[in-house]
């Protein structure tokens, strides 16, 4: 493979265990007196963004922090339920930095960088220390020490948690640290702003253009470096577990300015979500997959069987996971469970009104251990299910269906978390770096906080100390002016199409195409077909969409229209990436590449790489770049759950 000059991952030399320490020593430092001369823009206030903004301000940098919501505390990290991993080995059950590293690499099906993942595992322990010092009320045992549980099939108990609201508690921690810096005057906060463009001056990221969502005004801000922590793109599927405003726009517009987009086809589908109730469903709700520890998954044997679950005798039920995977049963990994559920529904064996659901049945568990024990374990989840569906899972089986949950792909970054644009750093779910082709449960919170609290504060210093900067004044800079002009034109164009279909109608249609053809299982024919479907839909969008209101106002329809316009383009990039990866790995399951046991079959010979895409112009095919992955510390193995 030809070495790609722009794709130098800058992985430090030396043994894996020492890379990060040595590298931090080698990094140039910014003189403390000089830090206040640097300004840094951070876009996003989730775990990665808020922790980065707070920590950079603590170090003495001036930070401008932007978010789309009315308050930084509302970022989507808040919705994470399960927990956060760390290699503390408090349970004394054999965990270690090395094991967390190994599990993460293997869980990602060997499509992540060794050096990044090892660093993540090392940092994991500091995160827990810091969060406890911040006052995060993690669960504790009777001795007053931190409690751990095993999560998502892990064989050790390394997950720290705060009831089912770990994300919320961690985010409030990062948010309070951020607000402390706001009151110190080190962070200037800009809520209700949406990033519309990245501005590059002399080849470096030097600022952003945002839309003030209250007034509609385009505002320009400059800095010496820009940090994107804008989350994942799961909402390209329209229905996902993401919050309504989660979008790809910031990342995609950076892509259009030259940042490469890596592995966009890697999207994780979560098996235990509450099924869709109808066309106007706006989002999907995840229920912790711990439910599969006691629930049994089944569908009727006969397609189209519309009897109530209680009327279907044992002999006419198909416990398809237990039958197909006798040793793991209902506890097979997320992607295997999801794929099998969809397969059953595609055969017409799905249950519920839409036929897009399978049962998750607790009857046997309740018989065995009693309703009290089950309520003790899952009480909250059962309540939530009842609230949303109006059905009582103690009496009748739950219905579940897979849903898009997390995106492993994202902007390409090197070991410093810097993209292919100098001065543009990308953190958290918005980058591609640590989870390979599939993410382990309870690892998203860990990565977001590692990037923000413990990686960027060092690496951004290395960049600032070594770079010379020209003066930039957004009010006279031609780059800023040009960018504002283009955004205005785009907004005006959206408002003037004046067609017949609403933005949501397009979004729903895009979502269905991608779910069907670029979702949990893919094949060449479907992907090619969907490419032209998405292309047509995009053309129709610009001729037939109707966006009410004006650009000079609080206009949620317009906000949405801009995001969906980007999703329509981004969808094509995802499909192209899926088409180019002629193997199966992790969540990317191409039916042409599977083992006899229906497992994803990797092709390490030809696809042991990160696919990074370079924008070449609207409606042009993107250029493909490859960063090859080398594994020096672990052996590549094939997983099997039979």
């Amino acid at each position, binding site marked *: 493979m030809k070495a790609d000059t722009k794709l130098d991952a800058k992985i430090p030399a030396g043994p894996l265990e020492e890379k990060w320490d040595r590298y931090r020593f080698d990094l140039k430092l910014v003189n403390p007196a000089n830090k206040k001369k640097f300004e840094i823009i951070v876009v996003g206030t989730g775990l990665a963004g808020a922790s980065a903004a707070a*920590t950079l301000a*603590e170090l003495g940098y001036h930070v401008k922090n932007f978010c789309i*919501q*009315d*308050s930084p*505390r*509302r*970022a989507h990290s*808040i*919705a994470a339920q399960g927990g956060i991993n760390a290699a*503390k080995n408090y349970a004394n059950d054999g965990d270690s930095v090395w094991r967390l590293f190994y599990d993460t690499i293997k869980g990602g099906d060997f499509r992540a960088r060794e050096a990044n993942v090892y660093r993540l595992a090392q940092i994991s322990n*500091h995160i827990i*220390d*810091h969060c*406890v*010092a*911040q*006052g995060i*009320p*993690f*669960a*504790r045992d*009777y*001795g*007053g*020490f*931190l409690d751990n549980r095993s999560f998502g099939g892990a064989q050790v108990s390394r997950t720290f948690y*705060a009831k089912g*609201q770990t994300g*919320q508690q961690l985010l409030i921690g990062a*948010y*309070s*640290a951020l*607000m*402390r810096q*706001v*009151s110190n005057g080190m962070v200037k906060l800009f809520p209700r702003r949406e990033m519309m463009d990245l501005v590059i001056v002399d080849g470096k990221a030097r600022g952003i253009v945002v839309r003030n969502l209250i007034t509609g005004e385009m505002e320009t801000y400059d800095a010496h470096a820009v940090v994107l922590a804008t989350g994942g793109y799961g909402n390209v599927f329209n229905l996902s577990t993401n919050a*309504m405003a989660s979008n790809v726009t910031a990342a995609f517009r950076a892509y259009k300015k030259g940042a490469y987009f890596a592995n966009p086809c890697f999207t994780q589908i979560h098996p235990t979500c509450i099924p869709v*109730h*109808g066309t*106007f*469903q*706006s*989002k999907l*709700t995840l229920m912790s997959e711990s439910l599969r520890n006691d629930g049994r998954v089944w569908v009727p044997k006969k397609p189209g069987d519309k009897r109530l679950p209680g009327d279907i005798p044992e002999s006419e039920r198909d416990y398809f996971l237990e039958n197909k995977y006798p040793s793991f049963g209902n506890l097979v990994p997320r992607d295997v469970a999801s794929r099998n559920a969809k397969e059953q529904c595609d055969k017409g064996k799905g249950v*519920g*009104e839409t036929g897009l659901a399978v049962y998750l049945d607790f009857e046997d568990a309740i018989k065995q251990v009693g309703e009290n024990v089950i309520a003790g374990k899952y009480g909250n989840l059962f309540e939530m299910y009842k*609230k*949303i*569906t*109006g*059905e009582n899972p103690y009496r009748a089986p739950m219905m579940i269906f897979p849903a898009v949950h997390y995106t492993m792909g994202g902007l390409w970054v090197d070991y410093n978390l810097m993209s292919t644009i100098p001065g543009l750093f990308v953190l958290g779910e918005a980058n591609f770096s640590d989870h390979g082709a599939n993410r382990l449960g309870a690892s998203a919170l860990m990565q977001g906080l590692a990037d923000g609290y*413990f990686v960027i*504060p060092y690496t951004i210093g290395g960049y600032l100390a070594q770079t010379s900067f020209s003066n930039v004044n957004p009010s006279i800079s031609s780059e800023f002016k040009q960018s504002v002009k283009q955004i205005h034109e785009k907004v005006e164009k959206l408002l003037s199409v004046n067609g017949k279909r*609403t933005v949501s109608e397009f979004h729903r249609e895009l979502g269905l195409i991608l779910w069907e053809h670029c979702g949990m299982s893919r094949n060449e024919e479907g992907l090619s077909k969907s490419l032209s479907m998405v292309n047509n839909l995009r053309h129709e969008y610009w001729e037939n969409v*109707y966006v*009410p209101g004006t650009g000079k*106002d*609080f206009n949620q*329809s317009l906000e949405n229209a801009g995001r969906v316009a980007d999703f329509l383009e981004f969808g094509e990039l995802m499909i192209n990436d899926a088409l180019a990866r002629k193997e199966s790995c992790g969540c990317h399951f191409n039916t042409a590449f599977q083992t006899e046991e229906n497992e994803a079959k990797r092709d390490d010979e030809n696809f042991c790489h990160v696919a990074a895409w370079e924008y070449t112009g609207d409606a042009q095919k993107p250029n493909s770049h490859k960063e090859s992955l080398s594994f020096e510390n672990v052996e590549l193995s094939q997983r099997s759950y039979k």
Partner: protein
Amino acid sequence: MISKTINLTLKVWRQNREEKKGRLENYHAKDISVDMSFLEMIDVVNEDLTKNRKEPIAFDHDCREGICGMCGAVINGRVHGHEKETTLCQLHMRHFSDGDTIVIEPWRSRAFPLIKDLVVDRSALDRIIAAGGYISVNTGGAPDANGLPIAREVAETAFNAAACIGCGACVAACPNASAMLFVSAKVSHLALLPQGRPEAAKRVQAMVRLMDECGFGNCSNETECEAECPKGISILNIAWLNREFLKAEFS
């Protein structure tokens, strides 16, 4: 799920930031599946308005699973609607009947200026947190997380207070528009934990002072806040806040 649909009449508050006066406008919500959430019902009405070339109703929302604290409106006089411990996004239409008329209004408080329709500016709550709702610890250098055991009940009580989602419903529910429940939840969460003790006195004074400056009213024990709080934050927190505050003032 047995799907049933209902028809409703909505009276929705419409007002733009620049306008001095708002008004209630009537809309019909037709064929609403009872499995929908309240916000999905508004989505349907908005889709309809859009198709008829009318401006959709502006409302804040994001997670739609009751955790981000962004949604909220007064439904028939009840903050977040009439279901107990439920955010507006988690209120489902099965709790309404065919033919109902539903009045939907924004949260009203001097400290929450109106932006548009149902959208208000709650940044005063952020300013209160900035005044002291944190533990002053810089990243790096924290001791081992298990170095300081904390009794399980203490951790749980702190968690229950920390579960506040910052939605501002307590303010909207209070006849005095007081933010006491919100402030007390943060004060208790941090004062209960040993890590938060060193700054406890300074924190409570700074937060209470800022609350007053922001134009929130005084607490006169009406307990409406507790009744409407979607996260079940207890008014015991207010008692704790008062104790912390008195301790701070007299030391």
